[in-house]
């Protein structure tokens, strides 16, 4: 079996294991929870790896795009309703026998006022999570486009500083707009499946971890598939050439502006999707998710996994998320109590520093590279030799 087939086989086996995992872990909701959060971070770390590792756009604004997706979904859920009769006072769009009602952000709640105009028995629904998530993804893309255009001429340190500034603006805005976002107390969101869901012939209530596990897993696998496809296409080739040398890439015909903006848009949309789903799963989103510590966590996951590898970054994120949870157990050395809830972050920081110093390609990526590239040179020489011998035989 050749190497490529072997690797695809391994990937398929891991995929099947992840799909089957809930059957084994159903009685361990805590593990399921960590797995869901791990997938969330895996999406963020791998999409950041596409942005920073592949395209060389070292952005600190990735969590801001995630939060924009989450808050958009949250605000959509809070302010949009479907009714069977018009309110007469809210902005509303007729949709067949229903009305899509947009509740006002400020002043008296128009929906409450409108109830006086609505006939008895009028039904008022919350919309399902999906339209809010889609809107969140679109909003993430719009902001990604905006930031992508603004940072076109910025490189390295300046890009990092700009995106930190952008992230802080987003955080402070969500913090300050208490009327809309509920400020530091956080914006509450409905569960992904408020009425539960039927899956594989079973009913799962809204608190069950299995449906959100599959939603996040699917989002993870789909986003990985999309990013992988992008990475091996001309898009991936061009963004890597931009990372290597913008001027040289442009001199070879690469449309620098298009691909730099595009990579921001794509990765922002993926981060926004992860944020929107995660916020619905957790049930609340607070501006604290935008603290620089959170962004550092994502960067660390990508760096430790392997900055230039989508799979490496994703595996790095999953391992670190599990490790951070399992390292919470404190222990004693003689009279000293080591409080691991705090010290685990120190050990983690140390691992990050060591990785940056000694293994700049991360800890996972070199293993992947070894599997995918070992013997490539020998194969190439053999291939060329075979071609030459074939040509000679043909002549003979």
């Amino acid at each position, binding site marked *: 079996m050749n190497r490529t087939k072997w690797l695809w086989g391994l990937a398929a086996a891991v995929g099947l294991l992840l799909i089957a995992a809930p059957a084994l872990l159903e009685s361990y909701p805590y593990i399921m929870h960590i797995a869901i959060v791990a997938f969330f971070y895996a999406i963020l770390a791998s999409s950041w790896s596409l942005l920073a590792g592949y395209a060389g756009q070292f952005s600190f604004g990735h969590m801001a795009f995630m939060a924009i997706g989450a808050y958009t979904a949250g605000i959509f859920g809070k302010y949009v309703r479907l009714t069977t009769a018009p309110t007469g006072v809210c902005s509303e769009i007729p949709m067949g026998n229903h009305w899509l009602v947009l509740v006002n952000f400020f002043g008296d709640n128009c929906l409450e006022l409108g109830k006086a105009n609505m006939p008895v028995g009028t039904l008022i629904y919350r919309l399902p999570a999906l339209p809010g998530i889609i809107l969140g993804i679109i909003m993430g893309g719009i902001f990604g486009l905006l930031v992508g255009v603004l940072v076109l001429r910025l490189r390295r340190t300046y890009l990092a500083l700009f995106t930190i500034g952008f992230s802080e603006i987003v955080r402070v805005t969500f913090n300050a707009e208490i009327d809309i976002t509920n400020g530091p107390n956080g914006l509450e969101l409905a569960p992904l499946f408020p009425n539960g869901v039927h899956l594989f012939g079973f009913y799962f209530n809204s608190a069950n971890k299995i449906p959100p596990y599959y939603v996040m897993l699917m989002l993870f696998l789909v986003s990985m598939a999309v990013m992988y496809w992008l990475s091996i296409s*001309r898009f991936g*080739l*061009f963004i*890597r*050439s931009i*990372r*290597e*040398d913008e*001027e*040289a*890439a*442009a*001199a*070879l*015909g*690469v*449309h*620098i*502006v298009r691909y730099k903006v595009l990579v921001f848009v794509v990765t922002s949309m993926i981060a926004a999707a992860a944020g929107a789903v995660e916020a619905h799963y957790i049930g609340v989103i607070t501006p604290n998710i935008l603290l620089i510590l959170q962004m550092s966590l994502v960067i660390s996951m990508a760096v430790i996994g392997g900055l*230039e590898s989508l799979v490496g970054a994703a595996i790095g994120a999953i391992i670190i998320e599990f490790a951070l949870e399992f390292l919470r157990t404190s222990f004693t050395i003689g009279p000293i109590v080591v409080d691991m809830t705090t010290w685990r972050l120190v050990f983690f920081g140390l691992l990050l520093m060591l990785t940056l110093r000694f293994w700049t390609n991360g800890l996972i990526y070199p293993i992947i590279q070894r599997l995918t*590239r070992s013997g*490539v*040179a020998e*194969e*190439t*020489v053999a291939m*060329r030799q075979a071609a030459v011998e074939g040509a000679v035989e043909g002549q003979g």
Partner: protein
Amino acid sequence: MIELDVNHIKKNFGGLQALNDVTFKVRGPELIGLIGPNGAGKTTLTNILDGLIRPSSGTVYLNGRRIDTLPPYQVARAGLGRTFQVTRAFRRMTVLENLMVPALAMHPTARQHDFLDKAMEVLKFLTMDHLVNEYGRALSGGQQKLLELGRLLMLDPDLIILDEPFAGVHPKLMEIIYEYITTVNAQGKAFIIISHDMETIFTLSRRLLVLNFGELIADGDPDVVRHDPAVIEAYLGEEEEEAGPAMVETYLGKDKRQDA
């Protein structure tokens, strides 16, 4: 028929006039050397031709299309390819990927495997086919220069500007680069070659442009240019008469006519 028209190009950087009224034409597959002392404006001119910087005034037309207002990627697609003074191979990409970048940039609907055969041909021509899957960073400096030349073959421009192609290159690789230039030129591509290697540039080029302090002081047959007083003064200063033919030979290479 390749036509490059460089018309009255001026470029100021603040108070410094890097180029002053530079005008020349290229017609057909010419092989032109561009020389001048350090700071003469050679690289500035190259950067203007390839769209990296805008001229303060003047125009550049390639095959009838104005290119001095275009960004570099459009200049490349219009038919002008270049290398840089300091080698700019994509170091964390494989040799094959390096070659695929211009090929795909020039053909928006094509896929990588459409160019595999061409890439292998190019690498074989450059004697680098065994390095196809190696990363750019694994190549020697000379091999990275060859890789840059290979990328230009994949870009397939009408006019190729090489900035110091022979600098710091092993004699064996120099031969390959020399052969590259003459072969590709014979296939109908025009070349402008910037070099401080006078011996090679005088032997290789059939026309020589000389820049000094941003001005084009000579344009013509290399052996005529070699004896141009303005060129000799640019390279040797006013001591030329005292220096005699030996110094001229040192700075501007041997006279081919004398050799003959």
